């Protein structure tokens, strides 16, 4: 029998599929779409677009001199929100303590990879009203890295120099600094939740610009990558600051951080006065106060938590 392909019957068959198959298909499609929407809402919140709009308006006329780009930040937050809400299931305490206008956030640094900064930034964007852009002070070294430097510029990260910080505070921005620096991130697992020495620069800056300091403690980042130590000779050979020994990287899937539970505690703002060019000893005493508050927040946070992963 010869198969006759009559265009009219072919059309009729398509119409059949539409009549009988389509309701089921479109229901499936609707289902997928609404599930995706619900996931989006769960991750990013109902008012995500409004939050982005607030930022876009803020940097509309002149743009940001440091290169912050709301469009890139939007994508970065969307990815980060997955880690913030689902992966690390961050619990945020006291975010209402962060005052409006210029402010300096001082936090403990840990976890081999600075995910803690990303999570703090994500929390301040998604959980704070109105949303804040976190400008963290990054190491000079990162500015010489391809991709990293361009990406950091676009999401508002700035090389940690006093001149840059002064200008950002003058613009009324929120600064995040880790006075432990790279020593804090690269701590081995055996010394988790011990604070390293704090640098003094942030305190001079806060006094000079009369900026409130908000102490922040991050719990959970210490356990995300278990580091046995630092291979100094390898770091020197590769010309990078540290070379942590992280055995989990060798396990398939171990490249992702362990899904620990993050807890962020934002303390009450602290105000310091005096002479910004005072002796190191005088400044160090003030820094000690901030360090004690962060240490206390970490201790009470650790006592309150039931486990590393939940």
């Amino acid at each position, binding site marked *: 029998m010869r198969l006759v392909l009559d265009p009219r019957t072919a059309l009729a068959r398509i119409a059949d599929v539409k009549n009988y198959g389509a309701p089921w298909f479109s229901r499936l499609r609707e289902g997928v779409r609404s599930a995706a929407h619900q996931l989006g809402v769960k991750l990013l919140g109902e008012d995500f677009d409004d939050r982005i709009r607030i930022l876009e308006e803020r940097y509309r006329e*002149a*743009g940001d*001199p*440091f*290169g912050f*780009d709301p469009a890139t930040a939007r994508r970065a937050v969307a990815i980060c929100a997955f880690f913030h809400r689902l992966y690390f299931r961050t619990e945020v305490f006291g975010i209402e303590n962060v005052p409006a206008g210029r402010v300096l956030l001082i936090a403990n640094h840990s976890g081999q990879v600075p995910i803690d900064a990303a999570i703090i930034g994500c929390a301040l964007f998604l959980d704070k009203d109105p949303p804040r852009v976190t400008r963290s002070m990054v190491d*000079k*070294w990162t*500015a*010489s*890295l*391809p*991709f*990293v*430097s*361009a990406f950091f*510029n*676009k999401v508002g990260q*700035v*090389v940690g*120099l006093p*001149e*840059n910080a002064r*200008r950002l505070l003058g613009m009324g921005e929120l600064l995040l600094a880790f006075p432990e620096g790279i020593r804090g991130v690269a701590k081995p697992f055996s010394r988790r939740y011990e604070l390293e020495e704090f640098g003094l620069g942030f305190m001079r800056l806060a006094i000079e610009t009369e900026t409130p300091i908000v102490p922040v403690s991050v719990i959970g980042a210490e356990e995300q990558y278990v580091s046995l130590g630092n291979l100094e000779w390898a770091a020197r050979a590769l010309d990078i600051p540290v070379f942590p020994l992280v055995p989990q990287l060798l396990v398939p899937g171990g490249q992702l951080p362990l899904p620990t539970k993050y807890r962020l505690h934002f303390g009450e703002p602290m105000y310091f006065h005096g002479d910004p060019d005072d002796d190191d000893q005088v400044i160090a005493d003030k820094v000690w106060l901030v360090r004690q508050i962060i240490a206390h927040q970490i201790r009470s946070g650790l006592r309150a938590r039931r486990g590393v992963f939940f």
Partner: protein
Amino acid sequence: MTDALPAFEGEEALIVTGISGRLGRRLTRLLHRQGRVIGIDRRPFPDRPSDVEHHELDLRSGRVRDVFRRAPVRAVVHLGVLHDPRKSAQDNLAYNVLSWRRLSEWVEQVGVSKLVVLSSANVYGPRPENPHFLSEEAPLLAAGRFSDIRDLVELDLASQSFFWRRPETETVILRPAHILGTVTNAPSNYFRLAHPPTLLGFDPMIQVVHQDDVVRAIVLALKPGIRGIFNLAGPPPVALSRALQLLGRRALPVPHGLARAAVDQLFRWHMTSFPAPELDFIRYVCMVDDTRARSILGYESRHDLTQTLSSVDDERWVD
């Protein structure tokens, strides 16, 4: 545009070195109706206004003295800086430093009361550890990574020491960011390329300034009482990728190592005039803080970002 111009009186003359360059010609066009302008340049100045006196001289030659002796000189604008990457660093250094030396001697001997030197923000040098906005006090580190720029740094330093040594002369050093327009310089040439190469993974913030804004800053610097170093920036800074996008250029991202080797080779074959180490200008940040120029000089950039960028495509034979 004439509101800020200082009055020039009678026979007193303004000497412009390097007058045949595009900046020099634009400056001349702005000033020659208000007073006597004398040009010194090795190149001819064929279409000059009839009231402008021009001397085709090398700045190092002894006959420059006669120019200074002939008329009472009120001010000198030094634009005659030569930076030809094709010439050896030695030649550039010798030309710029020696011509500066001679010029400053004449200025001192005749007792000129104002000297304006056009340096450049490039003397700070692009470095990953730069503060985002460099102030006038920042060290001039350009020669550290790129020794061929030593002549420009040297010239800036020599002008600074002249500033301190001779308080009777009001010395003004202008350090503009990348000057764009019909001028022939590396940044304008770069933006004129149909497919400007960029470095893969690097997208520094840059500052550009329109040539006419720089010319106006020079005029402002001629005002009596103004002295010192001034950074000049144009409209707010912009990411390199955004600038190329605004101009409608298709960027050609190349990994840095490859770009460096390629540019090096092309330079050797005389197919480009960009020396490879200058790639750092599209790799790291080198931007200036021009608060001082805006508050003391009264400088402002009158061209916005789009105007400044698109000025590189202006017809270049017109002026």
